[in-house]
């Protein structure tokens, strides 16, 4: 599918390039020679059985886990395996975790404030004042995530679903070039799920996105290319109809 060892020039409009990535934990291979290419402006849905390695793949991209082997390139020239998490975040890669993780002692408002794009260095934050612009942006996000009413609540006191929304909002606040979204609609009602799909499509107009989800209706609603992972490597790739028809995908993932 992907030719090995391409030079940067050959990668064309590639934003994210994973090649032959292998990660093992005490001998267990969570990723097994995984390769994946994401174009600029593309949105990709990644599905696959529990334990296929989807979250691990995101860990590798964001610098949380170092691969044992393989190449992870961003924007053709940046080798992500050499960078740590803040450096990768600074490149414009944002992430929403599978298990919602927010800053629990802070209010919803402050969570957004901390996530907003901007200078992250101590010497800036020490003097930073909340600008009108920032306030407007946070208000927008509060509406979008329907958290207006709880804006002053401690994030730790939110319900599970509210935290999911908050984290999605924080990801948007970062305004990254590439969004990695791990199971965004888990715990959402069907209506919310549909809205979220809509939201992601809107974002995708200006950003690149990788979405992991088990909700097939949602994936279908996204209407993008789907990659199916299984046991750490790509099992199938193509449109949602293509992969749902793949008997191997039905066997290991969709079930009958």
């Amino acid at each position: 599918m992907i030719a090995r060892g391409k030079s940067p020039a050959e990668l064309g409009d590639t934003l994210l390039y994973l090649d032959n990535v292998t990660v093992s934990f005490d001998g267990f291979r969570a990723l097994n020679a995984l390769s994946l290419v994401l174009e600029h402006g593309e949105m990709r849905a990644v599905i696959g059985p529990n334990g296929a390695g989807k979250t691990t793949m995101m860990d590798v991209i964001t610098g949380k886990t170092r691969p044992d082997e393989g190449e992870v390139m961003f924007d053709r020239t940046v080798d992500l395996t050499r960078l740590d998490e803040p450096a990768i975040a600074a490149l414009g890669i944002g992430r929403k975790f599978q298990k919602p993780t927010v800053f629990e002692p802070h209010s919803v408002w402050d969570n957004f404030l901390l996530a907003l794009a901007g200078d992250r260095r101590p010497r800036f934050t020490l003097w930073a004042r909340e600008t009108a612009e920032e306030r407007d942006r946070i208000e927008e996000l509060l509406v979008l995530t329907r958290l207006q009413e709880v804006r002053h609540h401690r994030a730790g006191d939110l319900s599970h679903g509210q935290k999911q929304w908050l984290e999605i909002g924080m990801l948007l606040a970062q305004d990254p070039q590439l969004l990695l979204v791990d199971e965004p609609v888990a715990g959402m009602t069907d209506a919310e799920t549909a809205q979220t799909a809509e939201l992601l499509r809107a974002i995708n107009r200006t950003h690149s996105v990788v979405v992991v989800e088990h909700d097939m209706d949602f994936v279908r609603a996204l209407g993008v290319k789907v990659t199916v992972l299984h046991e750490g490597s790509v099992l199938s790739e193509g449109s949602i109809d293509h992969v749902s028809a793949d008997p191997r995908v039905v066997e290991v993932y969709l079930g009958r």
Partner: protein
Amino acid sequence: MTRTSTAICLVLVLGGAVALAALNLATAPGSALHVPPYVVSLVGKYLCYAILALAVDLVWGFAGILSLGHAAFFALGGYAMGMYLMRQIGARGVYANPVLPDFMVFLNWQELPWYWHGFDNPLFAMLMVVAVPGLLALVFGWLAFRSRVSGVYLSIITQALTYALLLAFFRNDMGFGGNNGLTDFKDIFGLPLQADATRAGLLVATAVALALCLLLSYGIVTSRFGKVLIAVRDAESRTRFLGYRPENYKLFVWVISAIMAGIGGALYVPQVGIINPSEFAPANSIEAVIWVAVGGRGTLVGAVLGAILVSGGKTYFTGALPEFWLFALGALFILVTLFLPAGIVGALRRRRRTPATVPAPEPAE
């Protein structure tokens, strides 16, 4: 760290110190209003402890770094000041040696070790008061935070640090007077240390230093920097994915805090008249943490209050109940923990807070 409580605390500290100093100097010893010098130096000592407590609260309350070795910075600042005071003695030591401090003379040292040079200069000495603890904190913090040492691991190595320093300063060969440390100071900046006016001046200076530290800390923790710090405290790895470098944040407050502790120590030494290695004892650092916990972690004002109350309690109990004061103090710690989970200031403030900050006990969480 609400604005009002911080302001009240500032006024009390500054006003109180000035009032005590004035009453000490301006009234006659017999008068009812007279504040004896004993009280002046006692309060001065408490305020130094309060600076240390503030330093601990800054890193513990807001960056989640439980330092069990903060007294090391306090002691280092104290030693820097002590070395200056020692050099001030000049030929007035018992052996009348114009250069060597007494303890060097009687252990047959021939010349002043290199690291003692410059301490006769007050400016240099004051620079060292901040530079030595600051540098140690910088090196230690840089190593530890960069390697992502955190939690109890960090706590224990801070303890190891202060313990190692304790042992090192104990060694007579180190040239810091061994177990006896540095004593027998005569004057500071040319003023006799035993004069009431000097004492009162030191008290006011300490109060001013405490006030400045409090303002600085308040400024730091209420800034956006402070919010990041709290985020780091409770979800360090999450902040990284947002592009923050927790190690830089921690290192910054860590060094600031160490310098604050060093200043506290430097003011402490002329007021108590001795600095020796027992100030490095791990128990001292733990006590500083306890002041903060009693007053209320993460409240700044609580740290000041806790330090003064606990030290005051110790002064009172060791005199009033010499044989049983440990029961009283120990019980106080236990009761505060059980009944005032957020410390004294936390308890005063507990209004709008939901118990999510403080999970209900059995059987819930």
